[in-house]
C-alpha cells in the first residue's frame, strides 16, 4: 500500500475530490504509552504527514488488519509534530476502538489517512490567541500552540479544563513551549476549581486592549459556552467539532452537523467542511 506514496497521486485526466492533499500511509509505531487516566500518547514517524499537516487537521486511523471489529477507522486530531517528522496522537480510551489502539506496541503497524479537514485559521499578527480546551480537547490545541509559538507573532494563552488532576497531561511540554497556561479541575485537585468556561468568564470580562481570537476544542456544552462568550465580546472564535465518522473523506455523509440559520446549506460535514468551524456557522441549539 506504500507503493504510491506521493502526496497527491494525480491521475492524469481529472482533478481530485476537493483537491485536498492526503495520503494513506502504513507506519510503524515509535511509542504508544499511557500518560494519564485513560489517556495515551502515540507517536510514529511520517515525513509526508509531518510536513503537510496543519493544526486542527485530523487523521483516520485503522485499527489493524487482523480483525474487522471494530470495523471503521477512528478519527484523531494531530496532537503535534516533533523532531521534524514525528507525528503525535493524544487519545482517550473510551471504547472498543481506542482500547484496541492502546494495546498496540512499539513497532506495530497501523495505517493512517491524512491530513484531513480544515485546520484552524491562524490569528493575524497583532492578535492574541486564546486556546480553550476541555479534557481530550487539548489534543489539537497543543499542535496549534506549537505552531503559534514557533511563529512568535501572537501571545498564546491556554485555558485547560479537566475533571480531575489524573487527567492532566502534557503540562510540562506546554510549559516548555512557553504559553500562558491556566488549569481548572472540576474537583479542584489541581489549578482553579470549576469548569474551564467559568475561568474564561472571569479572565475574559472584556475584549481587552489587544484583539483576541478564540480557539476551542472540547465537549459540545463547553464549545457552546465559548461560542456565546465570543459572540458577547464580538470576538472571532473557532471550534473544533467531533462527529460520528465512517469515512473522514466526504463520501459517506455521516458526519453532518446542523448549519446555523441563514447558512446556505442545511448541514455541514465535519470531515470536510470542518472539523474546525467559525462558531457562527453552527446551529448550537441542536448540537
Amino acid at each position, binding site marked *: 500500500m506504500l507503493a504510491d506514496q506521493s502526496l497527491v497521486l494525480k*491521475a492524469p*485526466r*481529472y482533478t481530485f475530490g476537493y483537491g485536498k492533499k492526503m495520503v*494513506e500511509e502504513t507506519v510503524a509505531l515509535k511509542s504508544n504509552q499511557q500518560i494519564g487516566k485513560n489517556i495515551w500518547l502515540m507517536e510514529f514517524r511520517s515525513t509526508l504527514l509531518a510536513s503537510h499537516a496543519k493544526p486542527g487537521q485530523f487523521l483516520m486511523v485503522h485499527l489493524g488488519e487482523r480483525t474487522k471489529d471494530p470495523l*471503521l477507522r477512528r478519527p484523531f486530531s494531530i496532537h503535534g509534530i516533533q523532531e521534524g517528522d514525528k507525528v503525535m496522537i493524544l487519545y482517550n480510551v473510551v471504547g472498543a476502538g481506542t482500547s484496541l489502539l492502546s494495546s498496540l506496541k512499539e513497532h506495530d503497524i497501523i495505517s493512517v489517512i491524512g491530513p484531513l479537514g480544515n485546520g484552524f485559521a491562524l490569528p493575524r499578527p497583532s492578535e492574541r490567541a486564546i486556546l480553550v480546551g476541555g479534557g481530550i480537547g487539548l489534543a489539537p490545541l497543543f499542535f496549534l500552540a506549537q505552531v503559534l509559538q514557533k511563529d512568535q507573532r501572537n501571545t498564546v494563552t491556554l485555558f485547560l479544563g479537566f475533571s480531575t488532576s489524573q487527567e492532566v497531561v502534557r503540562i510540562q511540554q506546554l510549559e516548555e513551549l512557553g504559553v500562558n497556561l491556566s488549569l481548572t479541575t472540576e474537583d479542584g485537585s489541581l489549578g482553579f476549581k470549576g469548569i474551564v468556561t467559568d475561568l474564561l468568564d472571569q479572565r475574559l470580562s472584556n475584549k481587552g486592549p489587544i484583539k483576541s481570537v478564540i480557539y476551542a476544542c472540547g465537549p459540545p456544552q463547553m464549545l457552546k459556552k465559548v461560542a456565546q462568550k465570543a459572540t458577547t465580546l464580538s470576538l472571532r472564535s473557532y471550534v473544533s467539532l467531533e462527529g*460520528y465518522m*465512517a469515512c473522514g473523506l466526504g463520501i459517506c455523509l*455521516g458526519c453532518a452537523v446542523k448549519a446555523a440559520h441563514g447558512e446556505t446549506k*442545511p448541514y455541514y460535514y465535519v470531515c470536510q467542511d470542518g472539523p474546525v468551524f467559525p462558531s457562527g456557522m453552527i446551529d448550537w441549539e441542536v448540537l
Partner: protein
Amino acid sequence: MAVLPDLSVDIGDLKLKNPVITASGTFGYGTELTPFFDPSLLGAIIVKGLSLRPMPGNPPPRIAETPCGLLNAIGLANIGIQAFIEEKLPVLTKIEAPVITNIYGHTVKEYADLAKKIEKVEGIAAIEINISCPNVEKGGIAFGTDPDTAAAVTERVVNNTTKPVIVKLAPNVTDITTIATAVESVGAKAISVTNTILGMAVDVTTRLPKLANIVGGLSGPAIKPIALYLVHKVVAAVTIPVIGLGGIMDYRDALEFLLVGARAIQVGTANFVNPKTAIEIVHGLTDFCSREKVSNINQIIGGLKTM
C-alpha cells in the same frame, strides 16, 4: 510471458473491463477517492443516490457502528439530479469507466421523471434504481417489498430510457425471488442484491437510539452471509445478470459472490475502511485467476461446487 487473465464481464449490453463496481452512497459522486487510485481502472462507478430535488438528509447522528457492521440513516442526502448533471458529470465523464446513476423517488412518477432527465444526458452508462432504501419515511421501502410495486417502478423507468436499467433489491422480504422475477419480467437488464438490512442500536448510557432516525440500514461484513444467500437465491430465479454486494472487503469476499453466480460485485462500506479496496479487489482477482490458471473470469462465475 504470462497472459493477463480476462476479467471483463457483460451486464446485458454493458461491457465492464472487470466485475468490480463501487456501490451507491459509498463512493461519493465518483471522484472523491482519486487521491487514492484512478477510478478508470474500475469496472464501473455507481454514484450517490439521486433524487429530483436536492435532499438535506437526516439529522445527526446518522451512523453507528455495530459488530462488523455499519448502521446508517443518511436519509439519502444528495445534491439533486440537476446539480449532479451540471456540476459533477462533466468531471466524471473523463473517467474511463462506465458511470451508473443510482436514483430514487417518492412516487412512481418521480422515478419516471428522473429517468427522462438522465436519458437526455450523455456519459451515463446505466441507471440503477434504488427501490429499497429503508431510510426515508415514504421512500424506497414500499416499492421494494411488493412485487407489483417494484415492477411498476421498474416498468416506468424502462419505458422512459434507452439506457440499461438495473434494479437494486431490498433484502427485507419473505421471498426475494418474487421481486426479482417481477422486475425481470418488465425489462430490468440486471439486478443488484443487496441494499442494506433494517437495523437499530441503542446507547445504553443515554438510553437513546444511536441514530436520530431510530432505524437505519445495516451494511458491512456482518451482512455478507445474508447477502450471499440472497444472491444465490436470485441467481437461481432469473436469467438476467445479478450484481452481488453486501460486506465485500477483499477479493476473497468478491470471489464468494462470483462463485455463487454474481456477474459482477459492488464494494460499499469497505471504501470507508480502506479507500483502495475496490482497486485492490481488481488486483486480487487478477492474481487469483493467474494463480489458479483461470484465463477468463467467467469461468469462475457460478462455479460453486457441491459436496
